[in-house]
């Protein structure tokens, strides 16, 4: 009786000890789980083609890595489960590396990529003679740029398997096309990925042209230079008086006026052009001779009417397409104010022009060009000289300035 009790007790103890072994003998996890694993997509847009997937993970089991499989599934990332291909997903018929696999500590192998399971699975194999191996904790990464994202929004999954032989991937595919095989797997792990909508923002920018011309409220002092204005509200005047304090011209020398400015800004991709239209100073049948298309310096005692222009402020005003550079005297900025004051002069070393063939035509004469960008201010210097034989009278002209943008 005692012996039976002892035997029964022994059997009971032995059975309870063996129970854990029995419970664990189902599907044994004979592979290591890769860590810090991720798959980065270059785009999360549904059905996006030529998407790059960058795979990265830390090796769990030290050893040679000669083959890898990445299997993409719509159902779950669990290693050993069957795998259903995500709708619309493709590895590409001929997957191409944009970054070949890095295998720290291991050299000698050349990697190749292929698809399997009708573009559901990425199969990476090697050729060559291996030297060294990859240590546990080392990072392996690679990128393939031929993926097409699933055609459905939301989460999908991937599983990675590593093999010690180049034949490992093929054997894995052969063992179970549904992805449930763990034949020959050294390490494995699951990933979750997701396609997503996009956020679209739209804003409209209109064609823009800002242009104004006028005279400043504050005429420069005698012998002074003007201050470039940046606000059209500061160019409110419309008259220029060439002459002395009484507006009378002299054969002794020129009178120069610097009160006229123009402000222009545009986003025209092909610039905005300012043209000048109008006749020379005229009194009845008498005129003060327009200088012409060739810029000419002041000549006291001769009949001259003309103007020049220069940049007051801004960086987009150019004068490259004027006729003979009629108004683009480089020394225009040496002029000073004498008009409406007692003394003649103010011409500095500038040259002036006025080409009536163009200014009286329908299209006018090009004065300046504003390229796209911030606003610019141009300053106009007008000059008049008369001979002693100039017919007395009140000489006037109306000048028009027209800006045209080409977008």
């Amino acid at each position, binding site marked *: 009786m005692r012996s039976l009790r002892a035997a029964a007790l022994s059997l009971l103890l032995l059975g309870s000890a063996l129970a854990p072994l029995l419970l664990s003998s189902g599907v044994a996890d004979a592979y290591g*789980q890769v860590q810090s694993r991720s798959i980065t997509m270059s785009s999360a847009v549904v059905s996006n083609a030529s998407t790059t997937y960058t795979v990265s993970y830390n090796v769990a089991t030290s050893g040679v890595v000669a083959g890898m499989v990445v299997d993409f599934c719509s159902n779950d*990332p669990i290693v050993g489960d069957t795998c259903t291909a995500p709708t619309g997903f493709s590895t590409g018929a001929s997957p191409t590396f944009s970054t070949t696999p890095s295998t720290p500590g291991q050299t000698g192998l050349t990697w190749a990529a292929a698809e399997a399971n009708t573009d559901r699975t990425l199969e990476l194999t090697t050729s060559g003679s291996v030297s060294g191996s990859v240590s546990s904790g080392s990072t392996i990464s690679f990128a393939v740029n031929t993926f097409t994202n699933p055609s459905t929004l939301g989460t999908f999954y991937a599983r990675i398997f590593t093999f010690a032989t180049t034949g490992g991937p093929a054997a894995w595919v052969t063992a179970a096309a549904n992805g449930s095989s763990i034949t020959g797997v050294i390490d494995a792990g699951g990933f979750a990925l997701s396609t997503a909508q996009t956020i679209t923002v739209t*804003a409209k920018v209109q064609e823009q042209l800002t242009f104004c011309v006028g005279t400043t409220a504050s005429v420069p002092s005698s012998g002074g230079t003007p201050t470039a204005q940046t606000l059209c509200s500061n160019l409110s005047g419309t008259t220029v008086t060439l002459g002395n304090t009484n507006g009378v011209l002299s054969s002794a020398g020129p009178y120069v006026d610097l009160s006229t400015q123009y402000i222009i800004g545009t986003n025209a991709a092909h610039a905005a052009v300012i043209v000048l239209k109008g006749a020379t100073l005229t009194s009845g049948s008498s005129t003060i001779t327009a200088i012409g298309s060739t810029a000419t310096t002041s000549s006291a005692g001769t009949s001259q009417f003309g103007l020049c222009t220069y940049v007051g402020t801004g960086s987009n005003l150019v004068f490259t397409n004027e006729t003979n550079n009629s108004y683009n005297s480089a020394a225009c900025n040496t002029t000073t104010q004498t008009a409406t004051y007692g003394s003649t002069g103010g011409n500095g070393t500038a040259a002036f022009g006025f080409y009536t063939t163009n200014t009286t035509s329908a299209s006018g004469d090009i004065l300046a060009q504003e390229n796209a960008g911030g606003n610019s201010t141009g300053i106009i210097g007008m000059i008049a000289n008369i001979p002693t034989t100039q017919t007395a009278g009140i000489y006037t002209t109306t000048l028009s300035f027209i800006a045209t943008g080409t977008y």
Partner: protein
Amino acid sequence: MKRQKYLISFIAVAVSLIYSGLPSLAVADPTTSLSTNYSLQDTFFGSGSQINVCSSSYCAKAAVGALTVGNPSGTNYQLHAGFDTTGAPYLIFVVTPSSNNLGVINSSSSATTTGTFSVGTYQSGQYEVQTVSSPPSNGQGHSLATATGSCVASPAPGTEFFGMNLVANTYPSSFGANPAPNSVAGAAVGQAASGYATTNCFKYNTGDVIAQSASPGNTTGEIGYTISYIFNINNGTPDGTYTFNDVLVATGTY
């Protein structure tokens, strides 16, 4: 005879003691304990458990006598204990589809709008969200200027600029919002990434990480993010319809 019986009993007891000390080695799912303030994934301390107990027809998670269950956490740690935690990585990434039309914009004032998305991932997993789109373009070769390095504080109208951030702003007016959990308060953590986390300061660089999980890791909740966009143009900004299709990519690390 009596001695033999006792010997048999002793051997049986000894064997049972030896084996009862080793079951975790035979059944434990292979795991790696992470460092940097520690992290355990799918590690089971106990007896009689298996993540995948499978026959030919089914698989199950088996547990006998789990020592600890629940979600204890503190300021600097978080733990999911118990055998009923999910073993599968997951990633929830939802971008609220929106088409924001700012209409005609001008150089005298800034134009702003917002977009939203949410992210949730496997318990202790990490995630990053990138923006991978090019800056707004008129489709005729001009893209709005951006700040690709440091963010620009209070970008002024009249100076061409496009930028974004993921926080609440007061410039040029009140718009945007800080990251906030979508589900149970405090159940999820996340943050705007560096460069996109400063109020009233904006930048944009294609490929930048704009949001990420916060240490020690996300839990089973979702974080909602609000992207604040700002548009400025100058008088020279070429005309056209500027479109920005913000493609966001979420990557989980498990």
